[in-house]
């Protein structure tokens, strides 16, 4: 049998030494009547070679973002992953280990996470970051729960331009504790959350959750929003789904945010049809005991050498049980490792230049698309690498024509916003060459003419 090294002789030997004549003897604790008779109705086992070819065949039934020119973003970004990321994260000392409960033989994982925590802090301008959460959406939900604990208030305000699936996730997470979740309208011209329009709703709110750049790719005025929510005693939670933007944009920590969360997939993690990705959370120092998730700290061993270990575990489920800050146990450690390797491979200069490259690509494409007759900018706020456009009619026919030319032209926003029925969300990254963008613009012009 695959992966089970025992020979028949081994089985017999072990059975004899535990005083059993068959496996059934060991299953005495399982009432006879409850046992499965016969085998499970599953396909017969395969050899490794058969498995490899069967799965390669299945994989070929998908089309990849390499076979098509993809201009999709919307919370999952196609970025180049340096070879070193895969090569190093594939070292099985990393990926076949578990949570570093025993620090003396887990210093590799622990130091890597400590460094990851630091990178997230530097990127976001916050004081403390945890070892990772599942993904951006559940991180936003955990942040809202945390804000409720800190403020003792119930009402959670969600920007209407927070990723729609993040909003759904927050609502699901908050189902159990009931309370009040409100979605705020956005400025139809700016495409952003309007600070003046939220002052009434902000009264008595635990937090405002706002994405930056937002779901339409627009930059939000975090400082102004922080001003409003703080004046009402609530917290500002910034959600970043495209962290490459932080190579240029002012970090949330310098814009008055109390909790920064989001998605780190852009760094080092493949698109993977939506997961596993990497939720991050970074906070101001004073909230550390309310933070969910694992946390690595620096300390020393008995001889005074620098060492690392998990710390503040009393916040967590295995100790505090129903009073824990979260139910999270397993997080996304390997994804955090890959993100860290990508971030340090870029470093200061590389990240700033990558960020600028993304800005430039999107600016170029936006200009080309807006030059087409019948295509307009949907919103007027500044953008990073993603933007929305409006057509004269529904976008599906044009998107279908593009698909036939090998182009995934973006996301029709009607899927999430019924009123935006002529809108497409378009993203350009360093993966989209100028030729590709020119081809897209030319074909798009034909498709909408």
């Amino acid at each position: 049998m695959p992966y089970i090294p025992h020979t028949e002789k081994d089985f017999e030997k072990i059975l004899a030494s535990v005083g059993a004549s068959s496996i059934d003897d060991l299953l005495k604790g399982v009432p006879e009547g409850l046992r499965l008779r016969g085998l499970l109705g599953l396909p017969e086992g395969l050899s490794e070679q058969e498995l490899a070819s069967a799965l390669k065949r299945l994989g070929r039934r998908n089309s990849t973002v390499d076979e098509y020119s993809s201009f999709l973003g919307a919370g999952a970004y196609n970025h180049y992953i340096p070879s070193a990321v895969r090569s190093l994260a594939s070292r099985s000392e990393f990926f076949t280990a578990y949570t570093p409960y025993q620090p003396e033989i887990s210093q590799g994982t622990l130091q890597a996470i400590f460094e990851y925590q630091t990178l997230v802090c530097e990127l976001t301008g916050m004081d403390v970051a945890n070892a990772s959460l599942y993904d951006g959406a559940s991180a936003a939900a955990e942040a809202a729960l945390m804000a409720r604990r800190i403020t003792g208030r119930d009402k959670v305000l969600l920007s209407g331009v927070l990723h729609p699936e993040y909003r759904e996730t927050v609502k699901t997470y908050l189902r159990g504790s009931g309370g009040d979740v409100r979605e705020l309208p956005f400025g139809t011209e700016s495409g952003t959350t309007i600070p003046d329009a939220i002052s009434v709703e902000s009264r008595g709110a635990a937090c405002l959750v706002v994405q930056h750049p937002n779901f339409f790719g627009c930059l939000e005025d975090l400082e102004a929003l922080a001003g409003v929510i703080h004046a009402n005693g609530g917290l500002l939670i910034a959600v970043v789904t495209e962290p490459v933007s932080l190579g240029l944009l002012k970090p949330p920590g310098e814009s008055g945010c109390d909790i920064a969360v989001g998605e780190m997939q852009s760094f080092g993690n493949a698109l993977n049809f939506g997961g596993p990705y990497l939720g991050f959370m970074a906070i101001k120092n004073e909230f550390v005991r309310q933070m969910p998730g694992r946390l690595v700290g620096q300390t020393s061993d008995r001889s005074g050498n620098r060492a690392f270990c998990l710390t503040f575990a009393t916040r967590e489920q295995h100790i505090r049980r129903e009073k824990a800050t979260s139910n999270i146990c397993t997080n996304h450690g390997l994804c955090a490792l890959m993100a860290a390797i990508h971030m340090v491979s870029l470093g200061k200069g590389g990240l700033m230049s990558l960020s600028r490259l993304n800005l430039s690509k999107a600016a170029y494409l936006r200009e080309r698309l807006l030059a087409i007759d019948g295509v307009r900018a949907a919103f007027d706020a500044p953008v990073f690498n993603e933007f929305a456009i409006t057509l004269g009619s529904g976008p599906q026919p044009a998107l279908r024509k593009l698909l036939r030319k090998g182009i995934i032209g973006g996301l029709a926003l009607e899927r999430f916003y019924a009123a935006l029925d002529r809108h497409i969300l378009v993203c350009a990254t360093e993966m989209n060459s100028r030729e590709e963008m020119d081809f897209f613009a030319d074909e798009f012009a034909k498709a909408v003419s």
Partner: protein
Amino acid sequence: MEFPKDLKYTKEHEWLKVEGNTATVGITDYAQDSLGDVVYVELPSEGGSVTKNEPFGVVESVKAVSDLYSPVSGSVAEVNDAIIDSPEAINEDPYGDAWMIKVEMSNPKEVEDLMSSDEYQKYVEEEK
């Protein structure tokens, strides 16, 4: 293990020292020993109120967390802020430097059903 004679004790391992209408509260030597190295303590703020047998704070070691239960009801007259910054005092001097709060008692009769030093010592030995 020390069990000072002049104190009263609870089943949750808090001690109480009564001076007039004021009661000083802390955790016992046995409690700090079973917790191990204390790393964090959370106390109420001055002026707040506490209720007999209700939690008033939290004490944590690296791998355990315990609620602190108030032996009496009343208002919090004083809080020992020093142990918040150096929780190791709870291990080093649980009956002295590491007192936690002083309570202005609203019902001094509540002291009556607490254990004496001898009773508590017996209780601890049974719990082991």
